[in-house]
């Protein structure tokens, strides 16, 4: 599995940029005005500024430092210091593969990004950071009771506790952190969602409390 979950679709609206880490690469993830997703090496080819600090304008991602604009295919579209110049197509951001499915955004730095097929209908709950590695997060999530009972792992991979179902995708963030992307079964009530949100905070307490 070379694709990594970098965020929930809900949390990255059109014309927004965020930073992610995928297989050791620093990545700028952005969504264009038509909803299309893009994942680039997080470095402006001009002078190395992180593109995740940039802004989306005219269907381009622009670097905050000198305002170089890059098209959706990564090619440089405009250099403000030389407004008369039509930049050659050889000047380009480094583009990675990105896709989204069932409310989750997936990026691969080495391959074509693939999202796992999901059974059932899922809706976004939240992305939650844990100050510990993914293994500890998974262990804590499976061992923190929800409404008095331990979650069980269904054959298709999601967790169930009574009538509640939760889908969790974990990805490392830096050396010591994990970002867990959580989804709930479609139709879960607002009170149910908030209760699950509290439950995963409890799981975080226990994940972070254990030995490093």
């Amino acid at each position, binding site marked *: 599995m070379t694709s990594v979950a970098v965020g929930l679709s809900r949390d990255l609206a059109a014309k927004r940029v965020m930073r992610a880490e995928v297989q050791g690469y620093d990545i700028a993830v952005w969504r264009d005005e038509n909803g299309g997703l893009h994942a680039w090496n997080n470095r402006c080819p001009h002078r190395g500024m992180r593109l995740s600090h940039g802004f989306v304008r005219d269907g381009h991602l622009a670097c905050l430092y000198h305002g170089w604009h890059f098209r959706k295919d990564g090619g440089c579209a405009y250099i403000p210091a*030389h407004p008369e*110049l039509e930049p*050659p*197509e*050889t*000047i380009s951001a480094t583009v990675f593969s990105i896709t989204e499915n069932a409310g989750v955004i997936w990026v691969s730095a080495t391959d074509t990004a693939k999202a796992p097929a999901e059974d059932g209908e899922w809706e976004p709950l939240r992305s939650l950071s844990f100050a510990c590695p993914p293994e500890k997060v998974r262990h804590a999530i499976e061992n923190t009771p929800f409404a008095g009972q331990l979650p069980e792992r269904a054959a298709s991979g999601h967790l169930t506790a009574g009538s509640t179902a939760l889908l969790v995708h974990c990805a490392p963030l830096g050396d010591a952190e994990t970002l867990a992307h959580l989804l709930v079964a479609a139709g879960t009530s607002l009170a149910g969602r908030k209760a699950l949100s509290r439950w995963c905070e409890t799981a975080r307490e226990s994940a972070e409390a254990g030995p490093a």
Partner: protein
Amino acid sequence: MTCGAILTLTGQLSAESALPWIHHRGQLLNLAGWVRREDDQTIRMALAGPEPLIEAMEIACSLGPGDVLVDTITRARHTFDEKPDTFVML
């Protein structure tokens, strides 16, 4: 006929990295023409392309790869008999 420029670099240019580095930069800037080594201290190139990109080439080459030291870089006008469409190492 296509107008362009001849750039002549002088300095400590004997490193093997010099020509491939310049070739890579020429391709990155989508310039056409050629580059060749004259001797250990001299590299010459002929470039065709938009003026800001020829300037960008000149600026990048003045710094060059880590193991060369460019002392001077001079520029002269050049006319290609036929419009070049690639950048080649001679």
